[in-house]
């Protein structure tokens, strides 16, 4: 009996050590460990370096910056819970082909990309071709009949700007095919237009560069897919 108890205590100890070691390195700034937990593929070094750069640029303290990042991530996670469209158990409510739409439009779907249900957005390069940034492949193109999205909450939206801007934005995004994926949503508004990028950064950059539109609903440090979906200069084309 004593041996059994001892083994139990040891096992518990091991579990505790495992859990605590995961968070041991992060104690410099408030919310840092929470942010990294919510974005596990972003390194502590990358996050700290972004926070420092933003602090320098804005004149705010690093503590203020991390607090803002945490608030945005938390708000996004809460919104995901409210919308409650994604089934975490993998049981599917079915899928739907994303279908065709006009060049320069974009689609939104709920998605577990990067562990959290950040959602996902992809841009219509042509009415039959989607350009999107996805983990694994980076920026890629795929046919609209082959791209399946989860049923529930998915939609196609247009951007209220000229045809020239819509076309130029789509062409710019197309030129980004081959760029790698970035897991950093938290500060992607302030990272460069070129290089690695996630789905919302791709579309936000395309319209920022071509039409000077800011497809970010809240103008925070991070542009999340829902920020693009809910930006004021977008209009619903159809629910998927």
């Amino acid at each position, binding site marked *: 009996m004593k041996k059994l*108890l001892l083994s*139990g*205590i040891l*096992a*518990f100890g091991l*579990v505790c050590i495992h859990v605590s070691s995961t968070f041991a390195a992060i104690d410099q700034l408030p919310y840092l460990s929470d942010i990294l937990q919510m974005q596990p*593929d972003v390194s502590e070094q990358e996050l700290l370096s972004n926070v420092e750069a933003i602090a320098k640029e804005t004149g705010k303290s690093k503590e203020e910056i991390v607090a803002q990042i945490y608030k945005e991530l938390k708000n996004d996670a809460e919104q995901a819970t409210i919308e409650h469209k994604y089934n*975490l*158990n*993998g*049981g*599917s409510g*079915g*899928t*739907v*082909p*994303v*279908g*065709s*739409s*006009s060049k320069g*439009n974009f689609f939104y779907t709920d*998605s*577990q*990309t*990067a*562990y959290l249900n950040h959602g*996902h957005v992809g841009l219509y*390069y*042509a*009415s*039959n*071709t989607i350009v999107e940034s*996805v*983990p*694994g*492949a*980076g920026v*890629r*193109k*795929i*046919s*609209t*009949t*082959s791209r*399946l999205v*989860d*049923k529930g909450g998915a939609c*196609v939206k247009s951007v209220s700007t000229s045809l020239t801007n819509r076309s130029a934005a789509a062409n710019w995004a197309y030129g980004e*095919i*081959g760029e790698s994926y970035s*897991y950093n949503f938290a500060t992607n508004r302030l990272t460069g237009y070129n290089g690695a990028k996630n789905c919302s950064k791709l579309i936000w950059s395309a319209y920022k560069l071509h039409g000077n539109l800011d497809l970010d609903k809240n103008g925070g440090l991070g542009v999340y897919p829902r920020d693009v979906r809910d930006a004021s200069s977008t209009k619903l*084309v*159809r629910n*998927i």
Partner: protein
Amino acid sequence: MKKYIFLLVVLIAVGGVLIYFIQENKSVDTSTLIEKEKIGQKNFLKNKQAAILFSSTIDQDANNKGLSYAVFVDDTGAATGYKMKSLELGSMAKGKQGVLLVDKDKIRLVGTKYQEFNMEKEQHTGERTGYLENQNVYFSIFNTGVNKLSGENGYDSNVLFGNKNGFKNGNIPHYILTSGIDQNDIIILTNDIEKKYDLKKVTITKELLKVKDIVELKNEKSYDYANLSQIVCDKDFYYVVLSEYVKDNSENTVLLRINKKTLEQEKFILATYKNGAAAVPYNPRNSAYLFQNTFYYLNGLGEVITFNTTTNKYTIKFTIKGARKDGVRRNEGTYFQDGKLYVMRYNDHKKTKYFIEEYSLDTGEKLKVINIKGLDKLLSSVKKVTIHAYDFRMLK
């Protein structure tokens, strides 16, 4: 006494934590899994009547979290799955040496002798897997991605081809919209430049892969075309069904027919849809079939459209009963063989939720229903990622 109560509480806590970790890491019900030892048996396919390939999409493959299952349905209808890494839009092929399974970094020959071949380069999206009987060559084409070294519109579709003696690497330097097999060649429709579509032939021998131009599609009105079917061929023509985008909420489903000799192109508008996405077939890579001078096409609304290749008349011949009209997919799949249509279906109200229906193409009559046992259990036990059926085929 207090000491023992404390220790008991600790033990319960440890038990709880362990159960949590076990549940979190348990990805699938083991009773529906195929062990490597079993799939390696020579007679593995002997009692299997169908195969379905499931995979997660690429966006779920962060840190290799994606996965795929090759599910085999035996003669009693029982389904078991072989777990592999993910490959979005993956597909299978059956040939003399068994079934070829492909994931993102391995190809496997299953049936006569189990063989595994590692890929030199990881892939993330499939295009078509097939078998060329005359050459006894299996092939798998991937949607690889942009190749900026090949110029402004440079694009690579990597190919693996070979058989039990080994596989070679090849490349088709184009973005492929759709593809198909014409006897011993692969036919592809490429779309490297917006609104420009080219039909090409890919010839594969045991050693070499060559790409030859056939014809550029006429597109005077600069339409965008999306793939709705694979390319199928008879001795005189190439056939392909495409979605012609008119505007938001208006799409034509068109059948393109190209004469092999004269390269003359004909376009037939089969239907116009307000909700084009709902009409996208269950599997656009296996939605068309030629049989006895009739071209068959099954759309996403469950309508079997026929086109008489002699009279050019087309009609909706029959409709799959109870097919959804809103575009929602529950892992449905289609397969044509020997004048019959096989449809893998889902019905939430049935005890056995997944089943295969067999239809006569000649009469539209439903001939048989095969209930797939255990598939629902297997799929519902996959945690953290969602997987979709990307290919379905009968094996007998």
